[in-house]
């Protein structure tokens, strides 16, 4: 451990076990998604929008929350509930459409939700859960709790009406929402430059008179720090914050077996971002600052891999939904 390490770590406000948990959750997302990719190739899973490359943004933000806080996501959906701490097996079972799935097989890849962990759902419609995040925050305020809601959205959603309506509504009512833009530079196959007249979506915060901050989305501790400030502000009645994390997805917009997408991202760009892998960056930091050994990192990796395999085995051996499930869960 370097001389200045204890000071830097104490400034983070994170215990060593929390730092391990951050690594563990990032690895959970990475290994879960790699396994999902394999299963898409074999046809066991029909498709999905993978979060590989964006782990630091998700985990850094989620780890700034308490268990009882709320979170909403989007179509790139697997990482968010994992980041929020939901167990892997019911998530994997959901991707296989099994009755043991977190949504009993009715939601699937784009509509994961784990209410027991504050995950209020993911959505196949871009921008659509932003108003719902505002409502969860309003509910917390009206019930007199200090819960906050973390609202993930992408750079594409920043051009949807509900983005503007939601940020405005949260701002005028000073609601405890953290609007977290996972800016991976592309709305499907179209670059941000083609769709958005500003480089930093965080600048749009000014239009709603709330703070807006850009953060390196590949640096999990930087994300954690910025989002922690936003959470503290929200909890204490200061209102919403817009945080924009610059990140990158390694995979295609969606991975479906047989999909053929013409190249739309420069090769050099992909090389640049892969050299800034969030898990590599954080593992290196743990070695440099906490004297983590390669063996310790490998051990967490191996444990996580085993956890993912258990989730896959659970999902595969789970029964498909009973036919009468077709008509249940619609109404109370």
């Amino acid at each position, binding site marked *: 451990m370097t001389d200045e390490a204890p000071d830097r770590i104490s400034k983070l406000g994170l215990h060593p076990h929390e730092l391990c948990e951050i690594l563990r959750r990032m690895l959970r997302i990475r290994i879960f998604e790699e396994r999902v990719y394999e299963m898409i190739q074999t046809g066991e899973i029909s498709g999905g929008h993978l979060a590989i490359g964006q782990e630091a943004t998700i985990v850094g933000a989620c780890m700034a929350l308490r268990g009882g806080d709320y979170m909403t996501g989007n179509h790139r959906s697997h990482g968010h509930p994992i980041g929020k701490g939901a167990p892997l097996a019911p998530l994997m079972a959901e991707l296989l459409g099994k009755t043991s799935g977190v949504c009993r097989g009715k*939601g699937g890849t784009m*509509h994961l939700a784990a209410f027991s962990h504050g995950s209020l759902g993911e959505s196949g419609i871009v921008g659509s859960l932003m108003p719902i995040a505002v*409502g*969860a*925050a309003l509910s917390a*305020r009206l019930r007199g709790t200090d819960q906050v809601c973390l609202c993930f959205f992408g750079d594409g959603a920043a051009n949807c009406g509900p983005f503007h309506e939601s940020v405005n509504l949260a701002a005028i*009512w000073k609601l405890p929402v953290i609007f977290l833009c996972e800016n991976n530079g592309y709305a499907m196959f179209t670059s941000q430059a083609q769709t958005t007249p500003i480089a930093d979506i965080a600048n749009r915060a000014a239009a709603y008179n709330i703070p807006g901050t850009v953060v390196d989305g590949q640096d999990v501790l930087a994300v954690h720090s910025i989002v922690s400030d936003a959470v503290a502000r929200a909890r204490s009645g200061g209102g919403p914050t817009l945080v924009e994390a610059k990140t990158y997805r390694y995979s295609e917009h969606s991975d479906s077996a047989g999909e053929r997408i013409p190249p739309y991202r420069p090769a050099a760009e992909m090389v640049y971002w892969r050299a800034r892998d969030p898990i590599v960056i954080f593992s290196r930091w743990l070695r440099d600052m906490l004297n983590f050994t390669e063996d310790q990192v490998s051990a967490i990796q191996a444990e996580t891999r085993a956890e993912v395999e258990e989730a896959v085995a659970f999902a595969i051996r789970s029964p498909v939904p009973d036919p009468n499930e077709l008509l249940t*869960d*619609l109404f109370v």
Partner: protein
Amino acid sequence: MSQITYLEAALQAIREEMRTNPRVFVMGEDIQSGVFGDFGFNEFGGARVRNTPISEAAFVGAGIGAALTGMRPVVDLQCSTFLYSAMDQVANQAAKIRYMFGGQSNIPLVIRAAVFYGVSAAAHHSDRPWGLFAQVPGLTIIVPTTPHDAKGLIKSAIRGGNPVLCLEELSLRRQYGEVPDHDYTVPIGSAEVKCAGTDLTIVAVASAVHTSLAAAHMLTDDGISAEVIDIRTVVPMDRQTICKSVAKTGRLIVVDPAPGTCSVASEVSATVAEASFVRLRGPIIRLTAPDVPVPFSRDLECLMYPTADKIVAAGRRLCRQRIAATG
């Protein structure tokens, strides 16, 4: 019993539920001042009576988010066509979330919207979208026609656990009627036989119920005894009450002021054709609006909707067929 307007009955339902349950709150455009007159929400304060910006998607969605996390919001959309500005939140989110997430949470959300028509309000304010939203599984749709039912159905909606779309016809909101002074509810999913008859069943929705009652009265001059049924709840529809009536009368007219294609009138007709075909003594007649937007000119708009005269003519036609058939 008290004589109050339909609108006052609806507001009483909300105010009474707000007094007994702190989880109930209201929001919408101009809700504090009341765009149709004082809504009488002052006693509850600004936290539970929330004026919203003109952001239908945001405040309908906020209602969903609040409902998912323990509140019982009543969202006021002012005019039913404004629902289209929040279509994703209504049709994709409120309606589907409970099913899509495997029943992890209830959505006790009430969305109220006034239905304007027949008042020269033109196309953008005059839709009657009960049939349109009935195509969205997951939405409960109530269309009260009296002060008594408005209060009772809205109370049921607020106390329930499902997203409910309450469509309140503007012309009915001004009408007076008797409302019990004690607490009561009207169950969602039950139609009401408004007047009993033996020759002909008239099933109606919204203010067409009152038009149909007038027509039934006129038909007595011809010796025709018409039974009038108020659907009250479009989803879930009380098919049993409708089929039971047709089993008795053998004749059906469905009166729906909305465009006819894929309408509530179509659904009622198909239900009876499937379940009670052998009981029918003549063709089912649908009296609906034509499939056009509502024109501004009163002279054009008044041609659109089923009138008592049109219902009477249809009733006579059906019963003449009976006479011819039986010789």
